[in-house]
């Protein structure tokens, strides 16, 4: 360990992440004095905005919590309100919603892997220089992202801020011809996924580990996206409505986001958490990719979240094709159930690209919102990022890393969580 190292790392408004956050590291005489992850995003107060609003309007408002995972937010509100008011959507609508989730996750993961994470591994400030130097890999990333957007656009009307996800089901069914074309586009993604895996295998992922508790949805039968039990790798399992016992929010002074905890000082959500809790439920092709990268539960290396996202892209493409095949056999004539407003309260939990997302809504007898609560994946990850930074700075010091290297590692760590900061300060 370098005894004489003194450094002040102060990353103001970290780049290549969604939203505004600062990293602060202080080292004196080779000793870590401070490692802090502070979110400085402006809060928007969605829980206040939603008060008094008609239930049917709520998903259109809450989708605006996040520009990247608007479909997840719409569906979390829809699930919460359907459970609160006893609404059952038709099975075809449930399939269409799952496809919409797949589209969003594929575009989000592709955006993160290629645009936000990769530049650190290849030593460029952004993806832009790679358009010249590595055009094939950039085109591969763009095709995967575009395929995700194509799913979202066909199923929900557009890529960001879904149009046709409504209480009771979906407002419009996709045409069969369009589903066929989407299926063909997804099949073309399979070689692109192989090329991405080959490229990712060349990246040197830091072998840092910190023992962590991981939380995700779990339902015994399928890789989870919409609803189910809440499961932690430390063995906690709870029912969906018990989300508060799973999150335990608190507000530290130095940040505008809340922090959460469960069995330890912090826990993690996201692709790695989902893989850690549901590895056996991935499609066989995705299990193979996980195996190729040595990703096996419980993986405690936060940098492996990048790989877990790749594994999920493989799962999503194959799963989406299977669901499209089923939808092609369905007349799609029952996609929306009629419903009446009533008083109730329930939680809707979905797996957004960055992890488990909870909306809890309470309605009055006219279906107006009395109370709303949203707990965002990045909110759940913020405390874990904060504690990881501390452990990572110590780990880097023990290995004699210089301040520039420590800063890069810290930035890469935060980016590995793919934080959605404006989302976390909603």
């Amino acid at each position: 360990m370098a005894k004489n190292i003194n450094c002040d790392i102060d990353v103001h408004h970290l780049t290549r992440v969604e939203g505004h956050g600062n990293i602060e590291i202080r080292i004196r005489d080779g000793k870590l004095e401070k490692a802090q992850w502070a979110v400085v995003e402006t809060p928007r107060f969605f829980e206040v905005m939603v008060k008094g609003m008609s239930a049917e309007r709520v998903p259109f408002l809450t989708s605006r919590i996040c520009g990247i995972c608007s479909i997840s937010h719409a569906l979390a509100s829809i699930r919460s309100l359907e459970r609160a008011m006893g609404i059952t959507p038709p099975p075809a609508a449930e399939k269409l919603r799952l496809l919409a989730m797949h589209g969003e996750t594929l575009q989000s993961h592709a955006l993160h892997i290629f645009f936000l994470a990769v530049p650190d591994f290849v030593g460029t400030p952004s993806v832009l220089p790679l358009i010249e130097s590595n055009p094939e890999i950039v085109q591969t990333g763009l095709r995967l992202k575009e395929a995700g957007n194509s799913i979202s656009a066909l199923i929900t009307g557009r890529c960001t801020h879904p149009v046709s996800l409504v209480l009771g089901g979906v407002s419009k069914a996709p045409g069969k011809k369009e589903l066929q074309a989407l299926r063909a586009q997804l099949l073309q993604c399979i070689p692109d996924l192989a090329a991405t895996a080959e490229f990712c295998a060349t990246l040197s992922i830091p072998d840092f580990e910190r023992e962590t508790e991981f939380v995700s949805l779990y339902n015994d039968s399928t890789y989870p996206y919409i609803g189910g039990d809440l499961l932690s790798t430390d063995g906690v399992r709870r029912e969906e409505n018990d989300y508060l016992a799973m999150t335990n929010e608190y507000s530290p002074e130095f940040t505008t986001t809340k922090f959460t905890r469960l069995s330890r000082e912090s826990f993690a959500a996201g692709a790695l958490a989902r893989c850690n809790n549901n590895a056996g439920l991935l499609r066989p092709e995705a299990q193979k990719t996980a195996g190729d990268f040595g990703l096996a539960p419980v993986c405690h290396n936060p940098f492996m979240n990048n790989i877990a996202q790749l594994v999920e892209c493989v799962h999503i493409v194959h799963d989406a094709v299977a669901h499209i095949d089923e939808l092609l056999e369905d007349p799609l004539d029952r996609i929306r159930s009629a419903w009446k407003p009533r008083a109730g309260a329930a939680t809707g939990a979905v797996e957004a690209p960055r992890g488990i997302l909870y909306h809890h809504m309470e309605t009055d007898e006219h279906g107006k919102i009395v109370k709303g609560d949203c707990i965002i994946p990045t909110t759940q990850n913020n405390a874990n990022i904060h504690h990881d930074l501390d452990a990572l700075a110590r780990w880097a010091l023990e290995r004699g890393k210089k301040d520039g290297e420590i800063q890069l590692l810290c930035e890469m760590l935060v980016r590995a969580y793919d934080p959605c900061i404006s989302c976390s300060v909603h």
Partner: protein
Amino acid sequence: MQHLGFSHQKLRIGSFDFTCCEGCQLQLANRESNLPDFLNLLDIRNFREISSERHDDYDIALVEGSISRPDEIERLQDIRKRATVLIAYGSCACFGGVNSLKNRFPIEEAIEEVYGDHKVETMPVRKISDIVKVDFSIPGCPVSKKEVERIVVAVATGSVPSLPAWPVCVECKQNQNTCLFDLGEICLGSITMGGCDAVCTTGKTPCLGCRGPAEGINYPALRQLVSERGMSLDELDEKLRFYNCFTTFTDGEEH
């Protein structure tokens, strides 16, 4: 870079976000098939969401989001000073957007509701033109990438950008949709600026007016239609409020 045989400089551009979801910036990375060509038109000087390189010399500032904290005012004024052209894009920047729904509640009550005793800094939401001069606005929640491309290309090639004057109804009819009023829904398509290809009504959900008023609209006629059909004026008001786009018409009304 050539356009119609004329060469021109790449546009030096900065993209900045304030209180918002960053969904409009994300649209810039969509329409992937022509993305490398679009990027080739630009010299990206400052775009925190995609690049670690940050420079303060840019001709065009694209500004997303509304203003809800004192430090945002300072940052925005600084951007205004540096930019030759400032474009507000997205409904939050142009009108305040959904964030403005917070303004219906006293600030102290809002903080208490979400944060309890933990005091966070926030103020009533304002649109960008409340703080600095805006040269051009591109509305929408989110903006349409096609429209952003059209306007950026216009600026890059020295032609005058413009927005549609017609309402969403025109595009909705072109798409051969059944009018949502005839299906029992209150829709703001008749008073809202087109240019979105009627994406919501084509997906069979009513227009909530994210692009703001079209030119020469007949707002009283919409209220009258809603009343005559025995629909809820409260629901109409909830929709008019959604993006804070129609305050010129609704302010001063008694309900």
